[in-house]
């Protein structure tokens, strides 16, 4: 019986871990290039979830299909946010930039509260309840799709960073900002593109979780805090580390819930966070600069 519980914990942990990984990848990328910790990351996810909700409710567009709209749309929104809000404060002190993104997060959440009230909404396509059993472990189809989608998206992004010129420029900027500038890279544009990609990643993650989650103005917070833990775990600015970190945190959460009493699973996650900061401050897989 205990073996069944453990198997279930591993399965659910991995399924959710993929989503954590994708959310954290965007955060990590933005940190790597812009050197800011984006507190508004979760709020952008929330906006994307509302977009998915409205596309489904008003136009009947399938939440997974809507990624084709949501992803590019939030890439553009991210670029605009970077240009209008972040870039003018580029040379401000780091803590001011931090407060700026925190303010942005509060603004977006309250905007959502005004526009759509605090109601919980949900998107329930016909397949939302689908599930199957492997061994004795339950696998929910929407969660499986979310995890698979997150991995595909993360791999695509990885390939983009490795193979395209823009991707290489992003990596160059992340590893050696001054060198990149001297080599003629349009730093302003690349910073905007990186922020746009970060927003696009979290928007895709938002669309992927909507079929098994709910939509509310503060929904991004659940994922945002976890994403910080994942980023620290994987190494600030380390993109692959973020994906792996996502799986580790997902596993730690669900195993914690299975093996420990009560709400100690949160304790496991944040305990891990503190331990990594103490003993491996550059993250389990090293920071972005030493890859």
């Amino acid at each position, binding site marked *: 019986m205990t073996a069944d*519980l453990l198997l279930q914990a591993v*399965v659910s942990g991995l399924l959710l871990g993929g989503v954590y990984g994708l959310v954290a990848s965007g955060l990590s990328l933005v940190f790597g290039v812009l050197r800011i910790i984006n507190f508004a990351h979760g709020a952008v996810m929330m906006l994307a979830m509302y977009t998915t909700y409205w596309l489904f409710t008003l136009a009947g567009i399938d939440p997974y299909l809507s990624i084709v709209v949501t992803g590019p749309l939030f890439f553009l929104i991210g670029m605009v946010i970077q240009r209008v809000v972040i870039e003018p404060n580029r040379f401000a002190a780091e803590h001011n930039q931090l407060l700026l993104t925190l303010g942005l997060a509060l603004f977006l959440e309250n905007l959502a509260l005004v526009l759509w009230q605090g109601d*919980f909404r949900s998107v*329930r396509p016909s397949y939302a309840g689908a599930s199957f059993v492997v061994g004795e472990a*339950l696998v929910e189809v929407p969660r499986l799709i979310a995890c698979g989608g997150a991995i595909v998206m993360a791999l695509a992004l990885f390939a983009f960073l490795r193979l395209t010129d823009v991707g290489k420029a992003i990596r160059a900027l992340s590893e050696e900002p001054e060198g990149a500038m001297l080599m003629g890279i349009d730093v302003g544009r690349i910073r905007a593109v990186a922020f746009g990609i970060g927003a696009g990643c979290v928007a895709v993650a938002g669309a992927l979780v909507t079929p098994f989650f709910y939509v509310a103005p503060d929904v991004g917070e659940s*994922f945002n*805090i976890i994403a910080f833990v994942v980023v620290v775990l994987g190494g600030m600015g380390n993109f692959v580390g973020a994906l792996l970190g996502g799986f580790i945190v997902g596993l730690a959460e669900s195993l914690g*819930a299975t093996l420990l009493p009560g709400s100690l*699973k949160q304790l496991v996650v944040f305990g891990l966070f503190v331990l990594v900061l103490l003993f491996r401050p550059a993250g389990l897989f090293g920071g972005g600069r030493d890859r």
Partner: protein
Amino acid sequence: MNRRAFLQTAGAFAALGAVPSIGRAQAKEVKLGYILPVTGPLAFEAHLSLNGLQLAVDEINNAGGIKALGGAKLALLPGDTQNKVELGNSEAARLIDQGISVLIGPFSSLVAYSVRQVAEKNKTPFMLLAAVADNLTEGGLRYVFRVQPNGKAMSTLTMNNMLEMGKAASTPIKRVAMMHEDGNFGTTMGNHVEAFGAKLGYAMVQRIPYSLKSPDFTAELSKVKASKPDLLVISGYYGDSKIIAETASKLRIGVHALVGLANAAYSNPKFIADNRELTEQLFDGNYWHNPQSPRAKAVFAAYEKRFNSTLTSHGVQAYTVIGVLKDALERAGSTDRDKLRDALSKTNLADHILPQDAIKFDDTGENVNATPALLQVQNGRPVVVGPARFAEAKPVFPVPKWHG
């Protein structure tokens, strides 16, 4: 008219401007002050309460006001807490300065815990609305009154209702699992359900506090399933309760029933409408009205007509509080706070729309007969299935679908 007299008159009219009933300036009136979070995160819920107050006040005024006071009208004086403790205190003090006979509010237990001292110090009767924390009536306060069941009454009576139902269905409930959010509300409920087990003879086989922010409960619910409970009790808010019910369904959790305890989702009409299949036959122990009462039907119709929406349990509570106050004012024959307090403490009011016997207060100010209703979603509607004498439908128990 000299300058001072002019200013006094002008000032008096300006003050009256803040009161809705400006046209009745000469008639004697009873000032009722309310403090509610009418702006801020709880604004939506606060207006549900406010509508209930307004409906009851207008009903009484249209029927000739308080007869023992020569037909004096009730006037509601507003105060906004924004759900903040400091504002609750200052608004309460302001209203007391304006000469209210009674203070009503303030929705959240946190604000209530502080405001009750302000009311006590100023010897002003304080009628609690919505706040459930057990400790609000503790400490030997004389001026605090609560009509609705507190956390203890809510949890013990709901468990009792479930156990009675189990006996009636020859499916006794011996093993109970509970999941509750790990804040003050859920923990209080969990403590009561656990403590009550020893008395009523059920074993708490699994108790899982959880964080509201957790996006997945599969591991927790697998543990619940493995402990083979007869009942799964859930005290939580909207989003978490929803995910728990969905995951329990997919896991084929194998219990006789899923029971909400003061749950924010399981008897919520919107949640039910959004999740028809999932919610069917869910139980919830919660505040409610008496569906057998013809008066309740009339009140619901009047509310619907006036506010173009359905009266909620928050509105029912508020409506009832005004009814209790009217009864006390008639007996006190005075707007004096101390006389009103004494009249309130001798309340024995049978004419109300709650699923309980007469409203009476004990020494601490708790309504001794306060009881939650046991609700079950049937055909997409929450109906009262217990206690038996208020029931409008027979419960479906055990619920086959949870056994998959």
